[in-house]
């Protein structure tokens, strides 16, 4: 009896001994791994996942988000309900907020944030996304204009290059305002991160996929913009998301002219010369680029010396400027002229590109130049002057009614050609107002209209009337 008992015990003990021998009793500190961030993929299934917090955006209804135990997807116990206010709701103008965790999560094993959603009426949600952590939001992804209707539908937000999200705190954010002044409700359920292998054909883009070109100078910084990517979803349809620059790697074809940092900020460091800025997302070349044509060090227009008391200034850093409606009216459909105004060494400069004609308007109020004698404009044509190039300056007076039209407007044009026109050197136009023959009066000037042929782009500075 005792022998048998002893045999069993020894058998058990020998097994334990062997197990202990195999697994080792000593803790080897060298084998300890650094604490890693949790990989929990759940955001909201039947309740908020552990460690999840919510914060409403400023100006939004703070209580817009709540848990709903009746309207849920499938037989889930609870969903998140969002109540968008009517316009002029004293509690807030819209519904919006961030779901974030106190401790970052390691999302590198997931390729998408997915959730089920529906709304009380067909509606477009202004923006949803992830990666907003109420701070740097380094890896923010935003989906504009998400359509929802009254049926539950599964939504997928693809995550490019998830390896970057090793400690992400921003799980989900949203923002949506009333429609035609009226509020509504929407619900979200079963929100989680998933490792879907059925998202395909990532098409990254910078500058919205366009090939852009800019003339600029050493010292100027230009941010890469229009950063987005398209994806083909598991149902074979395409979707576009906007991305923070941190998902991309940027390069410059000529770092002696322009460099670009990891956040996509282009800094022009030299010139004259050209650099092409391109980007990649997860090894895939992005469509779109920026060609920087650097002129080198910026040479500013001569600083005006006319006594300020004798000046009515529309645009200058040397004088106080009168109110101007706009420096580019974008007069569709025939105007091609675009603006690319910049600041160099503290000097603000107007830049016009793709030039055919452009209007500068100053009608609220109009300008009384009756006592003035000249219109001055500094102009720099950025390329060598084409043969036959013309630059016309038209002054428009709005007449006694001080408004466009009404039968009392008048205008006159002065035309310049070579040799007054030169390329790549500041031209100081000093136009006697009497040269504008045909102007019925100068007491209600409202517009300067510039028109040209053979001139593609130019800078303008120091636009003023003086005596």
């Amino acid at each position, binding site marked *: 009896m005792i022998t048998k008992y002893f*045999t069993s015990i020894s058998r058990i003990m020998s097994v334990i001994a062997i*197990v202990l021998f195999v697994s080792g009793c000593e803790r080897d500190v060298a084998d300890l791994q650094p604490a890693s961030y949790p990989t929990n993929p759940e955001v909201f299934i039947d309740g908020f996942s552990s460690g999840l917090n919510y914060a409403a955006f400023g100006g939004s209804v703070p209580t817009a988000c709540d848990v709903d135990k009746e309207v849920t997807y499938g037989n889930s116990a609870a969903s998140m309900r969002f109540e968008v206010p009517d316009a002029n709701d004293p509690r807030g103008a819209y519904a919006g907020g961030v779901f974030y965790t106190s401790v970052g999560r390691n999302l590198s094993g997931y390729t998408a944030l997915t959730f089920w959603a529906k709304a009380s009426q067909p509606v477009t949600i202004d923006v949803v996304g992830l990666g907003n952590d109420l701070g740097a939001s380094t890896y923010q992804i935003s989906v504009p204009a998400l359509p929802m209707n009254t049926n539950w539908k599964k939504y997928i937000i693809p995550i490019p290059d998830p390896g970057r999200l090793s400690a992400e705190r921003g799980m989900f954010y949203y923002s949506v305002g009333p429609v035609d002044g009226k509020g509504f409700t929407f619900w979200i359920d079963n929100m989680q991160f998933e490792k879907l292998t*059925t998202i395909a054909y990532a098409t990254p883009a910078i500058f919205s996929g366009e090939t852009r070109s800019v003339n600029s100078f050493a010292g100027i910084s230009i941010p890469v913009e229009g950063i987005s990517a398209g994806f083909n979803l598991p149902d074979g349809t395409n979707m576009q998301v906007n991305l923070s620059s941190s998902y991309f790697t940027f390069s410059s074809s000529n770092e002696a002219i322009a460099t670009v940092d990891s956040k996509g900020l282009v800094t022009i460091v030299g010139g004259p010369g050209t650099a092409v800025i391109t980007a990649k997302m997860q090894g895939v070349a992005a469509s779109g680029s920026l060609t920087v044509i650097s002129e080198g060090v910026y040479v500013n227009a001569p600083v005006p010396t006319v006594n300020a008391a004798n000046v009515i200034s529309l645009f200058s850093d040397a004088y106080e400027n009168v109110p101007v409606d706009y420096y580019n009216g974008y007069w569709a459909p025939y105007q091609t002229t675009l603006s690319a105004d910049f600041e160099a060494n503290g000097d603000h400069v107007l830049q016009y590109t793709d030039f055919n004609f452009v209007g500068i308007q100053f009608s609220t109020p109009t300008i009384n130049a009756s006592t003035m004698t000249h219109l001055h404009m500094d102009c720099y044509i950025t390329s060598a002057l084409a043969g036959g190039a013309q630059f016309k300056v038209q002054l428009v007076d709005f007449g006694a009614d001080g408004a466009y039209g009404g039968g009392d407007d008048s205008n006159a044009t002065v035309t310049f050609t070579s040799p007054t026109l030169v390329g790549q050197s500041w031209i100081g136009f000093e136009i006697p107002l009497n040269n504008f023959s045909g102007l019925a009066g100068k007491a209600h000037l409202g517009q300067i209209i510039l028109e040209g042929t053979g001139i593609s782009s130019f800078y303008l500075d120091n636009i003023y009337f003086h005596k």
Partner: protein
Amino acid sequence: MKTKNNNTLWHAIVVSMLFLTTLPGCTPDENQQLPSRNWQLVWSDDFNGTAGQLPDAAKWGFDLGTGDGGWGNQELQNYSNNPNNVSLDGEGNLVIKAIQSGNSFTSARINTKGLFAQQYGRFEARLKTPYGPGLWPAFWLLGENIDTEGWPQCGEIDIMELRGQQPDVIHGTIHGPGYSGGNSITKGYALPNGRFDTNYHIFAVEWDADKIDFFVDDFLYHRIAKEDVKGQWVYNQPFYLILNVAVGGTYVGFPTSQTPFPQVMVVDYVKVYKKG
């Protein structure tokens, strides 16, 4: 006594070692063990040729037009023999392209009717499918006596069909008398990772007097045995091959404004084998 205790201890060591080593390896065997066969290549097309060429006229004919009410399925496309819809790409592939213009669609359907048919054997194609709601590519076989016996009496073996709104799932199916259309004998196969449009996959059937086996990348996902078919077994005559991309129809539903067009099916090769 002592000996017995030593044996007991040794027994305990062996048992515990076995227990510890078997703990990690609990997953079932993922490799199928199928009997090896000796296949002899009988007919093939590797689609080598210059870009823009139509497929070899000695091997393929065309189904043209809109068939009978959209080829019996309310399909939307008009099949053509225009190289825009079907041609070699100069890189060893045949490309069948579905093109949208306004509200109408063109595409292509090629077959070996009257040129090649075989009873039994292995029929295989390596291809990438199109994708998007409403796209319906297929690699399939029809019984040679279709003109005299009609359908479904002639029998149909669908080696691969896909619904573009689920680009990671294909179906292998047979249609015959008593089990056709909505009552066909069908089984789906979903890729564990990825989609059928982003990479080449090999679709095949191995067919003999008693059964039809369906494969994706040499994984047997569907076996239809003759004795399990509740209806007439009509697979005892030569069948010819068909490759096509349909748009819309009762199997797949309609393309939507979100379906990216044009869409392509890219076929690396088609091969037919006989048992050696």
